[in-house]
């Protein structure tokens, strides 16, 4: 099982971060992704594969300031 933003997610295992973000409707330009305590570099979204036990946090920034 993979945990995303505190909730268990089915069917994410084996996908890359880029695939997961696209399928979940995130805009890649507006997000920051943490996996198991560390920020995933944007350049690694295409090559980082989600594995059983991963804990992922996706932050999607909104405008205003």
């Amino acid at each position: 099982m993979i945990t995303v933003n505190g909730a268990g997610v089915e069917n994410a295992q084996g996908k890359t971060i880029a695939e997961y973000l696209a399928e979940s409707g995130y805009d890649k330009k507006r997000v920051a992704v943490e996996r198991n305590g560390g920020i995933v570099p944007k350049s690694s979204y295409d090559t980082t594969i989600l594995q059983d036990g991963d804990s992922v946090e996706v932050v999607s920034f909104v405008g205003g300031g």
Partner: protein
Amino acid sequence: MTREDWFRALEQRHSADLQERFSQASVAICGLGGLGSNVAMALARAGVGTLYLIDFDRVDISNLNRQQYKASQLGLYKTEAMKQNLAEITPYCKVMINTVKLTEDNLSLLGDYEIICECFDNAECKAMLVNGTAENYPEKYIVAASGMSGLHTSNKIRTRKLGQRIYLCGDGESDVQADGTLFAPRVMLCAAHQANAVLRIIAGKFEV
């Protein structure tokens, strides 16, 4: 008010130990709009030693509803206007300014600063700064903001952590494009969360 008067007054309120930490601290504030102008004021008042203010824009009439500028400052660069305003509050905060647009290509400007405040308004710029800083400078603390538009309840504004060194302030969801505008109190609340997170980091209190 002499330098000695100012620091004595701060030490009496904060304790000498804590004030020494604040005085030694250097904080970069990226963006001087509703968030950054309020963060800068709060940190200068707390006696943070050095502030590095970065913004490329000028003060516009549309900023006065929430940003810490005055009608007399319309047309000035925000960096220069904020430096003036901070000097009027306390001339003993060292204020460095850079009138430039921060991009992926010039994040090295932040190299000397241990704590980085993300105070932009554009969502993609926010993500760029947080990702770029975290990737290139994993030892730095980043205090970012997302979600403070509209007239939603104050109580949704909060501070949370992403990993060990990124702090996220705001409600995480209210988008100015959907809400149409920003109001001073909610932006100030979010900026106050950021400024408090910065002071807590300097004080060695890392939990939220």
